[in-house]
């Protein structure tokens, strides 16, 4: 019996490795990221092309359902993970990622960084930033709410789509946003917002897809998301709703996985992340602000976007100390 099992398993695994065998002997740099980043219309295809010209290697973007999902994937796979780099975490989950001990220093020069916070981190390197905001269709919704307080008081059939704070950095960002704005009264605010939540999705792209299909009135996204509709679709009906409580900042980062067999290549990619070539691709593919000032600068569509007068941010260590408690509080408030 056991022999048959072993034979069978060996057979199945062997067939996988045959199917997986790659023809070229070039080194492969494997990057785990979230699905929207690696999509056909996302940054990954262009970044892959640009980096492969310089590195004599193959870049392989592998998607997880969500940003935090990419980190969990590495944890799940443990020492046998294929990931060399995890890309798409943010300052809020970076401390949790650091605590896993799965990441090593990136070795890149951070002097060029231009993000709205002081940055000095050996392990995680920013590649873009933006502010969380609710996006709405201005043709359907004439008077969007201007604060969480207003959102809370809207009628029950007003529906928003949000992301799960356990799997998605925007979802976590929203919990922290409300927390930073309302402090200990955050749970009360969530209880009032809860009836307006149509559904909680795993990742950003599920939520945005639902919103574009007309399933909800607003979706949690970024102040920079309207730039996509403006530039790529020449459509100005999608707008980000300015909230008087301020907007929470998200700085997205990448880190090198300890078990990488290509440390030199991974470090080269991290340095490439801050190049003008990489940073100029970001605004019109990931629809966020670049993490450095490039020679070309921002495309026109970005100039008319709402820039929050007040920026909210809870420092990473405080987030990590309270993340579980705050998420549990959120779960309870929305009915769990």
């Amino acid at each position: 019996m056991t022999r048959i099992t072993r034979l069978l398993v060996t057979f199945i695994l062997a067939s996988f490795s045959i199917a997986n065998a790659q023809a070229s002997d070039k080194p492969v740099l494997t990057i785990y990221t979230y699905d929207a980043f690696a999509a056909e219309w996302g940054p990954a295809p262009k970044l892959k092309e640009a980096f492969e010209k310089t590195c004599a290697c193959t870049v392989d973007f592998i998607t997880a359902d969500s940003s935090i999902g990419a980190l969990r994937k590495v944890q799940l796979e443990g020492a046998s993970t294929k990931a060399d780099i995890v890309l798409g975490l943010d300052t809020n989950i970076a401390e949790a990622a650091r605590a896993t001990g799965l990441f090593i220093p990136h070795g890149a020069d951070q002097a060029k960084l231009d993000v709205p916070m002081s940055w000095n981190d050996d392990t995680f390197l920013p590649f873009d930033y933006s502010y969380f905001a609710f996006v709405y269709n201005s043709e359907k919704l004439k008077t969007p709410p201007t604060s969480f307080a207003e959102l809370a008081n809207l009628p029950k059939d007003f529906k928003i789509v949000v992301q799960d704070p356990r799997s998605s950095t925007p979802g976590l960002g929203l919990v922290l946003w409300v927390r930073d704005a309302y402090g200990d009264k955050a749970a009360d605010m969530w209880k009032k917002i809860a009836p307006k939540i149509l559904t909680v999705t795993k990742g950003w792209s599920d939520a945005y897809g639902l919103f574009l299909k007309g399933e909800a009135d607003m979706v949690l996204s970024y102040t920079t998301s309207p730039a996509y509709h403006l530039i790529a679709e020449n459509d100005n009906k999608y707008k980000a709703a300015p909230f008087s409580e301020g907007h929470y900042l998200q700085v997205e980062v990448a880190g090198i996985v300890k078990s990488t067999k290509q440390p030199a290549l991974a470090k080269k990619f991290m340095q490439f992340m801050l190049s003008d070539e990489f940073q100029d691709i970001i605004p019109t593919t990931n629809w966020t602000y670049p993490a450095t000032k490039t020679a070309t600068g921002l495309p026109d569509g970005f100039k008319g976007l709402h820039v929050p007068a007040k920026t909210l941010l809870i420092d990473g260590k405080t987030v990590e100390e309270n993340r579980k408690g705050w998420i549990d509080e959120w779960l309870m408030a929305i009915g769990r």
Partner: protein
Amino acid sequence: MSSFSPLRRFGISFWPGLAVGAALLCLAGTIFAQIVILPQTTTVSAALDAQIWSILRFTLFQAALSTLLSIGLGTALAWSLFHQRRFPGRGALISLLSSTLVLPTLVAVLGLVTVFGRNGWLNDLAEALSGHSFGAFLYGLTGILVAHVYFNASFAVRGLLHRLEAIPAEKFKLARSLGLTPWQRFKLVEWPALKGTLPSMASTIFLLCFTSFAIVLTLGGSPKYNTLEVAIYEAVKFDFDLLRALKLALAQLAVCAFLVVVASGLRASSSAIAQARTPSIWGEPFGARCAQLGITGFCAIAFLAPLAAVLIDGLQADFTKLFAEATFRRALFTSLVLASASSVFTIAIALALGFARRNFSVPGRIPASWWTPVVSRVLAFSGTLYLAIPSLVLGLGFFLIARQFAGPLNFWAVIALLCANVLMALPFSLAILVPAMEKTALRFDKLCFSMGIRGIARWRLAEWPFLRADLGYVAALAFCFSLGDLGVIALFGNQDFATLPWLLYQKMGSYRTHDAAGIALILLALTITVFALVPRVFAGGRDAET
């Protein structure tokens, strides 16, 4: 030593079964140990416990409601089908209804979304007719209930219909001559016949809904509507919080064990034998007739529309593009290999357990003694482990084992998937095979013993010809169960190790609807083909003798 001589005589049929039974129990023990003994840090947070309670309450609540609705609708449909015996497609409808047992969950979910979703057929129709839409009711609790009733009401119909058909025709004649109304007739004649089977049927459906995973994962829509199974999945995949997953698994194990014990006390009363029945010469009263045709029509449309939706959407998929995708080809291959393997293992294990078990149940074999009840209990229990250890808990157990031993995760993923699929198919397989095997033993034991026919010869002459039809059915059942399963793979699936249902789930999540529809159609076609073909191949062209 004399009491052990029968053991020597039946050893060849006894020891393999006992070994398999013991191995299964060891497996369960290992999984259990992983979950119960391993965690040394038991920091009890009040918030977590409150959450587990709240999840448990919802899981029980939705399972109870699903069971009630499924049994209610199932009874109404069985009653309608019983009294309306002459409409075109009746036979086909009944066989389709009983095939939901092997219908891949996600395929049905996809069909349900196409029909009942916010932008689905029903809302389009309602909007065209009245300008009103039912909106997005398929999210949350309603969605879970709709899908559970879809599967379990159709599962209930066949059993209930059998019960009704076993009622002696004389009773109906009497009811007729007494001038009973359809309601009185239901209360006095039909209900007493149905009543006996309801507790065991309800407990089965309750267990299935309690451990429901794929439906809740896809239609639940928010953490508010989590079952324990989905909460375990999220604890591992979202939080990577193994301690939380363990606590949830413990709660799940405890409740399941309790339910299984309760359910095992609810035996169906004496098995019903359907009678050949000539169509009633009396028509039903007009009102009852309308109700029966109405119920049948409604159920047929509600049941068939999602399958039709899968077919229509699926045919629009770009299959050349799909087959060009390496991930898809690998998933197809993996699914087929796993399903075949779990089919083979299920048959081997079911036969071993069946051979061993009949030594105790058939008179003239091993005489009762102090150890026989224990052994036969072990044998019986080992076949129903799946009910006590749901697949996500099993998956979690294997996941923890995989973390302690070096070696690729995918190796353990294959083992975990095989185990889960075989365990899932075993209770159904044993329910079919064991009675058939006891029958052959009763029929041929004396002849075989007196003529010294044993081993392969006995199998060839006295077992295989009589079991082949049932074996074919079991093989098809195990294959289809494995092919459509989205349970353990949700924990283990990745780019390199995917099955078709897992890929379908991924495609659904990222709104690649055309690809999803294509995969769903392939799954549906494979399931129907295997279920129609394999039993026939086994039966060797002859009609199944059951």
